[in-house]
């Protein structure tokens, strides 16, 4: 991974989150406590605000700093989970990274694994992992299969969409929506939605290049 890639992804994510305010916000109001958009926007703003500080740094330090910063400034479930994601990616990322797909896929998988470990959830519990796990698997497999960048990006976006949509029928067994039981059925998970938005944002950025 390269620092420029991380930072331009961060900016693209920030823009996409803001553009999807209405969708994301309404979901956490429906089955959570209404702050997921606020948390996620604050997080992406915080990262955007670190741009100048991060630009000269190698990718592992960038990821580590992002993770630590998120850990100490966002709070909530998503704050600590995304922080864990970045802090774990930092461990795997090479100091002088390339934009090698397998390398990035491995780092992504490590990050997702950190979320699994911290939150003790898995696919099917109506969380962000219902997007992140299938996206990660698709990424690893399609990179290994030597797919083109465009093919991979399209596959990731599709996986994210399907993963997101799968949360609609689920009864939450992790996170704040657990309290709802069956009343949550029919609503998408807010964390899954924001992850889908972020995956799209990064893939679209790559596709545009």
């Amino acid at each position, binding site marked *: 991974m390269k620092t420029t890639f991380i930072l331009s992804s961060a900016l693209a994510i920030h823009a996409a989150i803001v553009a999807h305010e209405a969708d994301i*916000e309404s979901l956490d*109001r*429906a*089955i*959570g*406590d*209404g*702050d997921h*958009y*606020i*948390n996620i926007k*604050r997080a992406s703003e915080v990262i955007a605000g670190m741009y100048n500080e991060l630009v000269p740094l190698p990718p592992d330090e960038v990821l580590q700093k992002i993770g630590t910063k998120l*850990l*100490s*400034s*966002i*709070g*909530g*479930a*998503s*704050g*600590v*989970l995304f922080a*864990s994601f970045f802090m774990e990616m930092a461990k795997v990322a090479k100091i002088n990274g390339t934009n090698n797909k397998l390398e990035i896929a491995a780092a992504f998988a490590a990050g997702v694994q950190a979320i699994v470990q*911290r*939150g003790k959830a898995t696919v099917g519990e109506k969380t962000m992992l219902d997007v992140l796990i299938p996206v990660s698997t698709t990424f690893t497999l399609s990179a290994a299969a030597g797919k083109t960048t465009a093919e991979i990006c399209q596959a990731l976006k599709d996986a994210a969409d399907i993963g997101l949509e799968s949360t609609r029928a689920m*009864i*939450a*067994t*992790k*996170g*704040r*929506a*657990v*309290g*709802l*039981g069956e*009343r949550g059925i029919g609503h998408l998970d807010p964390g899954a939605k924001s992850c889908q938005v972020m995956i799209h944002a990064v893939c679209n950025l790559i596709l545009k290049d």
Partner: protein
Amino acid sequence: MKKFINKVDDILTESLSGFALAHNDLVSLHLDPNFLTRKQLAQNKVAIISGGGSGHEPLHAGYIGYGMLDAACPGHVFSSPTPDQMLAAAEAVHTNKGILFIVKNYAGDVMNFEMAGEMLAVGHATVLTSDDCAVINSTYTTGRRGVAGTVIVEKCVGSLAETGASLQACKALGDKVNSRTASIGVALTSCTVPAAGRPTFDIGDNELEMGVGIHGEPGRRREAMREADAIVKDMIDAILADFTSRNLGPTKNSEVLLLVNGLGATPLMELYLIYNTAAKLLVDAGLNVTRSLVGNYTTAIDMAGASITACLLDDEIKQHWDSPVHTPALRWGC
């Protein structure tokens, strides 16, 4: 949204500053990372630290002081605090006896406190509160929420810690109180998260949300507004059923602490009316209501609504509930 605020981003700091100023005999405020401690740090006792999203005032900072908390870590409104806050608070108040975290059972709070715990050199333990019995189906009870019963846990554990008891003993008491406590809330209106600027949920003029969470999370069901007695009956029934399903009895003449808690915008007149019905129903069920608390103790910002909490007392819990406490929001015996 009409609130007494300046900039939405400054609410927390300004409110905490006002709190620290108004109670400068009792608490000290530290900013960035945000935490509050007792003004006079205690010596040679387990340090009791709590924390959680803001918006539940007086929880938790209002319970800092003799006989209750040593420190509290306030997060953003409805967002758990972050590990650096707990670490700084722990650093400030720990003595040689270890640290007990009291954490309401929400994924965000649990994970952030866990992370702090992993980074902490000092011996520590955690009591997770999970008194909300709004969710019926037991398959979901991993997510059972901590609500107003947390105040009872903090009071009792705080009292025990003051005697110099061990970390293990404090945790055991906290777990016991939690295991004997059940709560359920009802909302007549939604709360409004200031940064969101609009109500978390829509609710009709003739509706109520039964089993609502203290963050405005949906509850058991949306139902038609009814008279207070009928609402309270359903709440007490839920609490008693919860006790039964946890094999706690209630047996004849069990003593109970009854807490009627306002969620922010419900006046005392209504809370006492609820108390009146709730107490009678508990007595009808053969229980003996010997301790009471009525007021705004665990709020959901500006929600109109109330929760009922019952705690099955034993001699140990009674002793620690009755012992002196001196905090901004709870004070007796000194």
